[in-house]
């Protein structure tokens, strides 16, 4: 994160700016100019102080709170304590008194106004560069009053995008496996919540073990595995229509489903006589192609965002490692080369990283590497971390973490490894799958 804010009146800030400029010139995605800019690629800089006073109108404090919490959890921003605010009752119709916000060293200011007209909720908001004394963004959202949290998420995304130059990820949901009942008699239900843990609800009833839900990258559709003592199945489930269908009957177990980037295919594993291989089903023709035929375990296929390649997990070399192949199964080669056991590869939406679970000795890690296996970085360490899923902008990973004997909990870590925190969802959860940005 880089703060490139210039204020000629402040020598310290000019010096700081000059220092950061040298770094920023090398790393910034877009050309740096005089306004605030936050660099998501750096993990060693202080988060940007931002003020998000209560919006005017009903639920104005609630909306401001959701925005501030989103920005804070990103790790790139530090929302200031509202008690420190000098200017009160700011409205979107009047320019802020910048001096009041400079006093508390707010670099950016987000303010807004809510009006309810009939069954419509209208929210105007503005993003200000306090020291430049300029508006950076002004937008109006209209929705229904009960949808106020989504409006807050959309404002968060707009602020994040304006300040970082990258798409946000706040107006998203997470499908996961909600666990209850305690160890040994666990009930697993598919559940969905907002990315900030709000609005959780169940999608399945708990009569079978459900696992590994995954989102389509371009629709509100998921695929997941269901396990009963008699058989396993892969389901497709449309969250908007609630239509659920099986991928079909197979000889042997089926598991580890994942959509192709265009949503038209599902890669999955079929186990037959103890041998697991990766297959690819065309969802319109319902025909399957076999992609691997090694006698070892081949599973956990994940597509590159262009759909041309697949990273997968295989123990053909004696221990579970990560392998790459063409989407037609061609050119299979190993990419993981550190010591330890690598599983659950998942390609980032931007294509630049592959996230994975790594086991070394008695510990588990979430890590990332380049698609050629280089630049491996471990982001977390614990008794059991597992199953990363990418936020749609490729900047944050969600995964599940277990302590010895404890229930799994959902956590997030940013791609620099600096910002590690639990998801504010109170229950036990595993196998998270992050949605694309909602429309």
């Amino acid at each position: 994160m880089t703060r490139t804010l210039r204020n000629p009146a402040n020598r310290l800030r000019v010096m700081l700016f000059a220092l950061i400029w040298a770094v920023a010139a090398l790393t910034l995605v877009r050309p740096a100019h005089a306004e605030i800019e936050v660099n998501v690629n750096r993990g060693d800089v202080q988060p940007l102080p931002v003020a998000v006073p209560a919006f005017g109108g009903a639920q104005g404090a609630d909306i401001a709170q959701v925005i501030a919490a989103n920005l804070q959890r990103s790790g790139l921003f530090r929302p200031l304590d509202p008690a420190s605010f000098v200017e009160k009752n700011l409205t979107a119709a009047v320019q802020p008194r910048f001096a009041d916000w400079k006093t508390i060293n707010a670099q950016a200011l987000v303010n807004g106004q809510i009006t309810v007209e009939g069954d419509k909720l209208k929210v105007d908001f503005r993003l200000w560069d306090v020291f430049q004394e300029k508006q950076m963004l002004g937008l109006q959202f209209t929705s229904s009053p009960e949808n106020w949290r989504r409006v807050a998420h959309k404002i968060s995304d707009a602020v994040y995008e304006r300040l970082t130059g990258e798409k946000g990820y706040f107006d998203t949901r997470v499908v996961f496996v909600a666990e209850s009942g305690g160890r040994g008699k666990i009930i697993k239900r598919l559940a969905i919540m907002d990315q900030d843990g709000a609005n959780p609800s169940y999608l399945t009833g708990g009569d079978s073990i459900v696992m590994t839900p995954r989102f389509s990258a371009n629709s509100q559709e998921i695929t997941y595995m269901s396990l009963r003592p008699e058989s396993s199945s892969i389901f497709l489930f449309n969250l908007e229509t609630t239509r659920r269908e099986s991928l079909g009957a197979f000889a042997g177990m089926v598991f580890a489903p994942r959509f192709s980037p265009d949503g038209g295919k599902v890669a999955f594993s079929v186990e037959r006589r103890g041998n697991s291989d990766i297959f690819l089903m065309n969802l319109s023709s319902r025909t399957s192609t076999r992609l691997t035929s090694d006698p070892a375990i081949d599973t956990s296929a994940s597509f590159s965002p262009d759909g041309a390649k697949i990273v997968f997990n295989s123990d053909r070399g004696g221990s579970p490692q990560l392998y790459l192949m063409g989407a037609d199964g061609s050119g299979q080669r190993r990419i993981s080369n550190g010591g330890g056991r690598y599983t659950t590869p998942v390609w980032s939406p931007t294509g630049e990283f592959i996230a994975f679970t790594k086991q070394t000795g008695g510990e588990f890690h979430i890590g990332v590497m380049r698609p050629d296996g280089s630049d491996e970085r471990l982001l977390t360490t614990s008794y059991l971390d597992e199953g990363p899923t990418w936020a749609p902008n490729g900047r944050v990973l969600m995964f599940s973490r277990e302590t010895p004997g404890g229930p799994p909990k959902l956590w997030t870590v940013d791609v620099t490894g600096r910002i590690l925190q639990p998801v504010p969802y109170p229950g036990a959860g595993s196998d998270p799958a992050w949605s694309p940005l909602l429309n």
Partner: protein
Amino acid sequence: MIRSVTGSTLFRLALMGVATASLAACATKKPMPIRNDPPPAQTQAPPRTELPPAQPGVTQLPTGALPGSAQDFVVNVGDRVYFDTDSHDVREDAKPLLDAQSTWLRRYGSVAVRIEGNADERGTREYNLALGARRANSVRDYLVAQGVTADRIATISFGKESPVDSGSGEASWDKNRNARTAIVSGAN
């Protein structure tokens, strides 16, 4: 049984004790002329050592598990064998139990089984599903090699979803790496 036998013995002893006491009481209370007769109580003393010995108790239970039943299989044969970490090789110490399973399954030829492979929690979900499937198939292959017809054996993997020991530690993990032979039909 044992309790009632013991109880009646005590009762009998108690009665005799009362008789002795009352005779002794008679001897002291009644104004009788002094004589040199030996006190009758002595000749009437309870012959403790001559009591018939208590009968041993007889315990009644149903006969053992019905031969050919699922209970018979679980109790008298054993339904679960264990594996080493990250391995699906049938261990030497598992072979006697699997030999007994195949003998039992050949005797009761209408029984169909499902072999459920399990893994410990020290692995990720999908890999452990595949690993559990390998373990189930190792057991299947062993039983088939011992003469159990293949079409009587189904397999499934529960991965790490169905631990028999909910603890965390080597002892628990050792138990959770297993394959269980579950009877699904045809048993008595």
